[in-house]
């Protein structure tokens, strides 16, 4: 009996969702007997979620209501995707284009970044050390100490004898001697 109630509840939720998406709703499902308060709460929840997804700049509901919505979302049964109707939501087209735009922008940024960074093979073994599994070897304290010594006792340039000192003093790591 509990299982039958759950199924009716799911059907009613699906019908409400369809109404929100501007699709033909299952009138029989909408007509199913249920707790009016639960239907109102669900309707309000869909309204808030819809506003948030559209990015409408409306005042957010109070914290208590948000907590109630989040709790309701927690209780929402997970459905296999096959149960969802094949018809797309009314705003799917918008989201699809946002996705396409995102991919396009990432592609453009990627192309530019590649142009800026150039061919990694030019840099010899740098690609090797940039593998996430290998931490940069400069993090090794001993190497950092040598870097500090290089900047102290080498690391100067004729173009910046004074500024070179300032640069190294600004940059150098605390001594690890």
């Amino acid at each position, binding site marked *: 009996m509990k299982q039958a109630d759950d199924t009716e509840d799911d059907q009613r939720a699906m019908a409400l969702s369809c109404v929100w998406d501007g699709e033909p709703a299952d009138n029989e499902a909408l007509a199913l007997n249920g707790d009016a308060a639960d239907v109102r709460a669900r309707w309000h929840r869909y309204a808030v979620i819809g506003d948030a997804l559209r990015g409408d700049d409306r005042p957010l509901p109070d914290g208590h209501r948000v907590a109630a919505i989040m709790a309701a979302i927690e209780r929402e049964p997970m459905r296999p995707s096959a149960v969802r109707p094949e018809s797309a939501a009314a705003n799917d087209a918008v989201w699809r284009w946002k996705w396409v*735009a995102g991919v396009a922008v990432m592609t453009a940024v990627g192309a530019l970044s590649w142009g800026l960074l150039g061919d990694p093979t030019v840099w010899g073994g740098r690609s090797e*050390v940039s593998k996430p599994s290998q931490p940069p070897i400069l993090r090794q304290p001993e*190497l950092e100490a040598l870097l500090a010594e290089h900047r102290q*006792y080498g690391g100067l340039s004729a173009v*910046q004898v*004074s500024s070179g000192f300032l640069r190294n003093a600004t940059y150098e790591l605390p001594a690890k001697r």
Partner: protein
Amino acid sequence: MSDTLSFGFCQGSVRSALWRRCRRSVALLVSGACAASVALAQVPANAEARSLTEWLTWVHEAARQRSFTGTLVVSAGEAMSTSKVWHACDGVQQMERVDVLNGAPRTIVRRNNEVITFDADNKLARLEKRESIGVLPELLRTQEGRIADHYRLQAQGEDRVAGHIAQVFHLEAKDAWRFGYRVWVEKKTGLLLKLQTLGPQQVLEQVAFTELQLDAPVSMAKLKALMSDTQGYRVETAQLQKTSPEAQGWRLREAVPGFVSLSCHTSSASGVARPLQWVFSDGLASVSLFIESFDPKRHQRGGTTASGATHVLTQRVGSHWLTVMGEVPPATLGAFVERLERIR
């Protein structure tokens, strides 16, 4: 097709409009970059009457003749450091104070080549002599021809840095053994305001004043007093022993073009020997070779890495461990390793 049509999402396919827009943006950026490249290429090589050596001397002397205070920012890779600096000079002595504003609080004071670093956290004052500060002006005089052999100076107009009118110069590397630089110097005095180290395709490191007061009333007496005020600090003196590569059993089979040996020393810290440090310079860039005995517990992985313009290569060489680093391309570090020989 007009811009209105090509940008209008209601015209034709939204997908194609979007791609047209992306393509147009990329095309604008690429054409902008090309235009910039052409503009640089059009600067005559001899636009500036001064020769490279005269120019370097002018920039070098500017820091020796002028007092200033300012805020200096160094950005390299993901790291950025800021310091407040005071510089005073009386024609004979140069004094500088650097208060590092990020990370561990520390103050560094220099009088000519004497440097003291106050580590406030550890109440430690470290005294040392940085002989390279004295060596480089000499290098500039003796190696002047060599610097011009490897770098070309081009004037690139004017800009404004930290509120000062600056002349912009490109120190272009003539070969792939070194990086080039873009330098902003104060128009009247020649004081260096900003310096970029240029990789093959991007800026590797920047040093720039964000605020600078020229001819500021910096008291040399106060800086001297600060340098000797070590009360409450434990004073450590860096123990450096000058040596020669040959005495340590090393030599370069063949010089790396433009780089000359500048110094070689050993050092110790708390009774523990530090690696031998052999420093090379081409006048603008420097390379340090650190050589120590191979220790399988500490030296597990060789490789290359970088921090801003400073590249690092570590490698086992026989029974020794070699760490080579400098503001040069990785291939230059590789040449040092390849040419290093054990002679005993």
